[in-house]
């Protein structure tokens, strides 16, 4: 059996090798979700420490990497939980920008798209986009100005596909707050991607 598939519960764990084999992978997994190097490094370290403690329960049913990613997922969620505990949800602006400027104000077209912000055709498919590292840079930069809780809600929903109830529990919010946050995050991100990525690519 290959070492990184490792089983052997009686063998002593080798965290140094875990770090060499899986450190970069776990870090990239974490930093994509947390968008913060220090927080991602901490999550990786906590993962290895937890793995050391839980090593006896790891019976090689999954690959070593799958097992470690499973632990890391919990560490990422713990980070989200901790950071919202430090910042309770205040007034409505905490949910993110409303972007009223995207829509016309004066009659007769009040509430309809303003020409400068209206969606237009994007010439790209998801398969093409995931390959483009510069796209992910823009994607991250576009999420950054959002309130942390809103960006976290977006990540948990659109990246990890968690259910509403789970996200509400992690972020200590009600489902109505969640829907407002997701809407504002989408409105903001879509516009930001169009301006900074799709318009330039064309």
């Amino acid at each position, binding site marked *: 059996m290959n070492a990184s598939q490792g089983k052997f519960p009686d063998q002593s764990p080798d965290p140094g090798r875990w770090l060499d084999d899986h450190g970069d992978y776990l*870090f*990239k997994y974490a930093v994509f979700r947390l968008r913060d*190097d220090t927080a991602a490094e901490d999550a990786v370290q906590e993962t290895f420490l937890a793995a050391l403690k839980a090593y006896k329960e790891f019976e090689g049913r999954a690959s070593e990497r799958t097992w470690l990613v499973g632990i890391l997922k919990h560490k990422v969620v713990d980070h989200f939980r901790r950071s919202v505990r430090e910042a309770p949800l205040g007034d409505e602006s905490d949910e993110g920008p409303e972007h009223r400027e995207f*829509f016309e104000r004066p009659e007769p077209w009040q509430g309809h798209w303003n020409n400068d912000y209206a969606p237009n055709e994007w010439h790209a498919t*998801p398969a093409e986009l995931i390959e483009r590292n510069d796209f*992910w840079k823009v994607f991250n930069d576009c999420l950054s100005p959002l309130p942390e809780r809103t960006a976290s809600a977006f990540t948990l929903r659109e*990246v990890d596909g968690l259910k509403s109830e789970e996200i509400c529990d992690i972020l200590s919010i009600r489902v109505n707050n*969640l829907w407002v946050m997701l809407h504002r995050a*989408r*409105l903001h991100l879509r516009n930001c991607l169009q301006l900074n990525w799709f318009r330039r690519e064309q």
Partner: protein
Amino acid sequence: MAVKIYDKLKHSIRYWLLRTLPTCQQTVETISQSMERPLSLDERLKLKLHLWICAWCQWYIEHLQIIRETARAKADELPEYAPGGLSDEARERIRRNLTNQN
């Protein structure tokens, strides 16, 4: 002649719908909600009619779907192919901390 009348009628219906239906600002909120919960019959009907007359909101739906699909695809295969990784400094710090624990 008949074609002209038909066009005019179509135009008037669209114009009337645009003024009667929920605005784009309200519709994009409904579109976002449709990704979270089943819409009511009333909401679905208004959304359908709005999309019939509004290409911008049609793009809006398509873009939200592209964003969701891309983010989920990335989540599944990200770390293997993405550049970057732990900095040397972070790697050594973690290694020290792990050795102390072991």
